């Protein structure tokens, strides 16, 4: 069964909304989630495939992109007994 992230060809997500002059990150915490993830993967706390898998199994379409990343990071850290 396809996972929730596999949306190609699906209907019902509404129109594409473009934000003009969008910054790279909308807030400091987004940049920190991004950097934290790279650092944890860089240090071998988990690997990139584990992270992708965690995003796919914990994500919600109701959450923002980096909220989903943060949830995945927390999940992996919990599962590996770090927090």
């Amino acid at each position, binding site marked *: 069964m396809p996972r929730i992230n596999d949306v*190609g*060809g699906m209907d019902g997500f509404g*129109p594409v909304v473009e934000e003009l002059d969008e*910054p*790279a990150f909308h*807030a400091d915490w987004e940049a920190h989630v991004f950097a934290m993830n790279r650092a944890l993967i860089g240090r071998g706390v988990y690997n990139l495939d584990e992270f992708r898998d965690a995003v796919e199994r914990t994500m919600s379409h109701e959450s923002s992109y980096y909220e989903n990343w943060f949830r995945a990071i927390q999940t992996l850290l919990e599962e590996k007994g770090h927090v």
Partner: protein
Amino acid sequence: MSDDHDDSPIAARVRELEAVLEEKGLLDSAELDRALEAFAHKATPANGFRIVARAWVDEEFKARLLDDANSALPAIGLSMGGGLQVQRLRVVENTEKVHNVIVCTLCSCYPIALLGPSPTWYKSPAYRSKVVSHPREVLKQFGFELPDDTEIQVWDANAETRYMVLPRRPEGTEGLSEEELASKVTRNGLIGTAAV
């Protein structure tokens, strides 16, 4: 970067986790700041604008770019390195007959180490679901309409291969310098949701 949302609960939770990880020796906040600064400096859409402008003025560079982009980039001081893993970059050229659009239906794959973070709409389920089945309709939402007889090719990125569109050089730009040409290119043009 804006600090607008730093009072939000999520910002507090991120700070909290960072502190816990730092205490456990799994993270170094100073290292994080340095990495972010280096990333913001190195990975920007402007790299893509430069690549496009060079391809418009240099046939040899363009041929190499379309054949094996990773090996073409060092000629203008760029590379696909700097990310978590080196991905293959495939550059797809717009022509009179074919227009290219990129997407990642499964998540958000994008040449981030080269072009910086993708726009939020690129990562949205709305774009990812629809552009593969109704590309023309999606392009219209960007105010971009193509002639009926232009074929649209949609490229679905993945963990190993990332895509970038080479837009067509606009008419009337014959006398422009490479730098001026680069200023004509937009991030949407590199994704295919704008002509240039």
